[in-house]
């Protein structure tokens, strides 16, 4: 189907911050502000216009909303005050829920597996392990190469105590409370998305 007229309405209602898409005036500031701009298939501006035009397949199959690094450049400049970063993350989540997202897409894999497992298993981010897993996401050889490229930065961070080399072991104090909180959030999210 080329145009799905219910798509925009559904995004406004069920994608996080999706209703803001109505406010976009297509000025292009977000696209020009994004440091990864040239690598997106569609700029945020284009994504929003595709949503409004009912181009469901184009939007949900696109890699674009997985490209956002949360730098917030677009948010501070958008003349209409759209929370672009959050809308884009919302669309990524929406695509996942609708079964469009490729689980092997690198950002998807990082966010839903590597980062998620890292934080949920202990209750806090273990930086060293997280960085390692990110580096080796494309296999051993690529990981070693990436590690070598970044070694000066890593050493600098170590020297200034910005990186803890010892992997964090064990769980945070009160882990049970943390786990209960996550479980509750997941329950609420599932309920909301089931209604969608």
């Amino acid at each position, binding site marked *: 189907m080329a145009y799905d007229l219910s798509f925009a309405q559904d995004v406004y209602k069920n994608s996080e911050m999706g209703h803001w898409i109505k406010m976009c005036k297509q000025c292009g500031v977000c696209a020009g502000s994004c440091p990864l701009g040239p690598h997106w298939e569609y700029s945020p501006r284009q994504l929003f216009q595709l949503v409004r035009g009912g181009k469901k397949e184009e939007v949900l199959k696109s890699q674009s909303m997985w490209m956002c690094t949360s730098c917030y450049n677009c948010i501070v400049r958008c*003349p209409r005050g759209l929370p672009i970063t959050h809308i884009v993350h919302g669309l990524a989540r929406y695509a996942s829920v609708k079964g469009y997202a490729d689980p092997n897409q690198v950002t998807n894999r990082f966010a839903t597996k590597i980062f998620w497992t890292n934080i949920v298993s202990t209750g806090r981010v273990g930086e060293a392990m997280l960085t390692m897993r990110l580096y080796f996401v494309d296999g051993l050889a690529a990981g070693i190469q990436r590690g070598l490229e970044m070694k000066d930065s890593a050493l600098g961070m170590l020297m200034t105590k910005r990186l803890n080399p010892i992997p964090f072991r064990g769980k945070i104090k009160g882990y049970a409370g943390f786990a209960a909180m996550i479980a509750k959030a997941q329950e609420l999210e599932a309920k909301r998305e089931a209604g969608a």
Partner: protein
Amino acid sequence: MADDQAASRTILVVGGGISGLTAAVEAAEVGHTVLLVEREPQLGGRVSQHFQYFPKLCSPSCGLEINYQRVKNNPRIRVLTLAEVEAISGQEGDFTVRIRQHPRFVTEKCTACGECSKACTTMVANPFNFGMDQVKAIRNSHPMAYPNCYFMDAEYARSAEARTLPCPVGAIDPDMQATVLEEHVGSIVWATGWRPYDAEKIQPYGFGRHVNVSTNMRFERLANSYGPTSGRLLRPSDGKEVKKIAFIQCAGSRDHNHLPFCSRVCCLASMKQATYVREQYPDAQVTIYYIDLRAMDRYEGFQKKVEADPGITWIKSKPARIDEDPASKDPIVIGENTLTGIRYADSYDMVVLATGMEPTSATTARVPGHSAAYDEYGFVVKGGQVLSSGCAASPLDVAGAVQASTAVALKAIQAAAKRG
């Protein structure tokens, strides 16, 4: 009793730009007494800083000149320059106002011969040209100024040299003091106009950091023969002729971080300024970046005329930021062309930010006391004791400001007739 009636009929007009001038002469020409209070040393407001008027591209001085004649020939209008309203009490039909007039240090005897200015050795940044050049500390703002009477900067008046300046008619008085007047008036028209939005606040565009990024009001002065370059369009960093120039629309307008409203004139102002460039340098290339073009109502013909010029390129895009080439000082405009989706980084000799009109009543010209009603942007609107006209009431072009001010003159007459 007769005295009392006359007093109740006096109309106070605050601001001597095109709007205040219009309200003043319209009310006076049907027989009412008018007191016109202007903060600057001369009348004319922002219009006197423009090079040409859209849509006819004639000089604004002729339109102003006619109004100055009407003021000069009408004994019912009293003009106070360098003056501000400090306090207002009472209500429609019966106001008492306190006005402070700052010293001019030159009396009305001045014939504008310029002898004093020739002898003066102190130079100051020229406020009339937005500080882009230097002028004498005793001067006229521009040759068309009305009243055609010189003035001296307050700081200079305290210098030893100020006491030695020659004047064939003895008009110079460095000891002149401020005066405070109390007046009874029947109605008040607030016509304090606008000021250019502060371009430094639009951080990603680099005004104030990038030397060749300018603003539309500065560009009016650059094009003007009494401007800092005597009317030649030369860029600030190296005086190079401006052959490749970009205009950026809605710079700080229609933007929730800046002025949320549309100023209605800046699209037309950029189109007009594009003609300045094309006229002066027939081989120049002009680019206009816009979200959507707003040539309000009857100005569409003007837009069509400008659009017919092949030397002007239109790019539908609000640029994200402006960088500067460190060696050439060329500004580089960066953004996304929203019709093609292609990202650009285009370099120019100079970039002009089409900044909007911020009501002075929001900041430097608040109505004293509680007699005015404001809208969310600081324009003076209906609902208070004080009437408003021109750009103090909403963003307007000159024709719109004149129309609105003529209408307000009638309201001011009616309000003045009310018994307090």
